[in-house]
């Protein structure tokens, strides 16, 4: 696993975002560096939901933040409208140029309460984006847009005008965050663990809402989560990450029904309700957790992989295609 390579990138006119060789490293202490994301490449088609799944420390959230350049990645490219005349590489932009592109990629976060400024009224929070770009006065059109979006997510605009975030429930706060993102009319909505902090009975509503908003506002989604069932439910295509690297990429149903990478298989087998495509034996993993400042050579997963051979330490596996829209970075994938 933990491989690199770009064979999983698709071409074509409907690809609206392409991430190439993304690297994000953070210095820590004197001479050490956390290799949070190491050479990750994937793309997103218009109208698609890309799910990024992995456990803590795999780099999925860091990747999400790198997409919006907060902070900008150490290296790599994040390209909107690749291979077209409007192509723009976000990593090459700064200052006002970057600001001008920002409305196109919006984000919603895990903690619904801390995603909203506790000191401001909800209506002001949702109007914030429009205010920034209209120099203060959003006008009637702006106000209508805000009300329309609030209605769409199921929040009463009158209540929003007079109440603050702490007066709403977790699920409602998440809706407000979604509304805020939608006022900008983005092309891409990045969702970083949007339902992980919500109760089970509320999750379904928010997930349904995201589906509805995607259809209504013509969005493409990047959906990050550690919950395998949720990821399968919302995604068209899924990316599995481990310790900063990609393990497996592919069509959601295909990946879940025929997982090829030992780590993917272990994840699916460890879920409280395991996937039917794997068995109990697949869940067996070594306990030797590697350090992100000093990751294993070759394949980063090899220290826990039940199938590791010498080649795994010597040579980092490259992504290779094993089926229609199914790619894996492993020397010994299941097929």
């Amino acid at each position, binding site marked *: 696993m933990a491989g690199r390579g770009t064979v999983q990138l698709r071409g074509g006119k409907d690809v609206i975002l392409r991430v190439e060789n993304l690297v994000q490293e953070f210095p820590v202490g004197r001479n050490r560096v956390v290799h949070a994301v190491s050479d990750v490449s994937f793309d997103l088609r218009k109208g698609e939901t890309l799910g990024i799944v992995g456990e803590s420390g795999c780099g999925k959230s860091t990747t999400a933040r790198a997409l919006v350049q907060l902070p900008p990645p150490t290296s790599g490219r994040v390209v909107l409208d690749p291979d077209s005349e409007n192509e723009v590489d976000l990593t090459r932009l700064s200052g006002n140029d970057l*600001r001008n592109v920002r409305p196109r990629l919006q984000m919603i976060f895990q903690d619904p309460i801390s995603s909203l400024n506790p000191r401001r009224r909800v209506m002001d929070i949702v109007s914030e984006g429009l205010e920034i770009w209209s120099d203060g006065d959003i006008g009637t059109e702006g106000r209508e847009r805000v009300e329309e979006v609030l209605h769409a997510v199921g929040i009463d605009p009158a209540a929003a005008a007079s109440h603050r975030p702490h007066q709403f429930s977790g699920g409602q706060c998440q809706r407000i965050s979604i509304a805020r993102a939608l006022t900008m009319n983005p092309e891409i909505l990045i969702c970083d663990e949007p339902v992980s902090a919500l109760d089970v009975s509320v999750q379904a509503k928010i997930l349904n809402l995201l589906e509805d908003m995607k259809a209504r506002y013509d969005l493409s989604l990047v959906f990050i989560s550690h919950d395998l069932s949720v990821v399968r439910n919302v995604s068209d295509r899924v990316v599995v990450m481990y310790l900063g690297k990609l393990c497996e990429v592919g069509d959601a149903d295909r990946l879940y029904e025929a997982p090829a990478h030992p780590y993917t298989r272990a994840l699916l087998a460890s879920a409280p309700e395991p996937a039917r495509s794997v068995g109990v034996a697949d869940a067996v993993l070594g306990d030797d957790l590697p350090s992100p400042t000093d990751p294993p050579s070759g394949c980063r997963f090899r220290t826990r992989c039940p199938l590791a051979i010498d080649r795994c330490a010597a040579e980092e596996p490259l992504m290779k295609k094993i089926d229609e829209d199914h790619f894996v970075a492993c020397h010994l994938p299941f097929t």
Partner: protein
Amino acid sequence: MTLPSEVGDAVMATSYTQAESAKARRLGLGFWLPMSWMILIVGVALLAPVLPLKDPTDYFIRPGERPPYPPSADHWFGTDQDARDMFSRIISGARVSLAVGFMTIAMSFTVGGALGMVAGLVRGWFDRLASFLFLVLLSFPGLVLVILIISLVDPTVLTISVTLAIGGIAPVGRLARAATLSFAEREFVIAARTLGARNSRILFRELLPNVIIPMGALVLLGVAAAILAEGGLAFLGLSLEKGETWGKLIRNGAGSRVLRDSPWVAFGPITVMFLTLASLNYIGDYLRDFFNVRETGLGR
């Protein structure tokens, strides 16, 4: 009261409109008692010129009796050794002491707060510079700095306030920086950036309303500290030359003989100063708790 998490879980399911009205009821006697004192003392201090008070510089010698005169119907707080009315002197002192207190805090909070907030948001070289400045200011022996400055300029209300304010920049700045750092990590700030907000907007719209809460609660505590600091300076003889301050009054009444024979000369101003400082501290604490609860929702 901070509720343990298990209770918090149960309470989270509760409608918050109930909680709001409950909190409003909480501004009880504990708040209004010290508040009344503050309103009284500040009100009297402000209105002193138009109130029918005795002239604080006048000598009210009674023939045949040596001052200081004990408290009586004529002189509510008695007089000092020169037969000057303590009541009006204390009020005159209040004008200066309170003025110094509030001016000092206004200056140190504005400057320190601004430096700290910008440092916390922008980081990089500015942060390093500001932190270094704070470090230097904190390491410098405060008293030496004050004596140095006072010896170079005329000690007026303004100069004393500026001098004390300089000493206050570092602690306030550090607090503002820490508060800004903690809020700057929160997702709503990242969200503001993704919407396209510039740093200045984030500073004023997102961070300031939040940072001002912990800082605001400390304003009153800071005023108390400044008044006390001025009192100390006056006691050392380093405060205003002309006019009265509580510190000067206390100094006047602190000689061992005066203290023993006519304690009211010192204890009049001491009592008033104590009540003022205690009230400021109490209200400051109260407000800090009040806003803490409001933001996090019943202490969670």
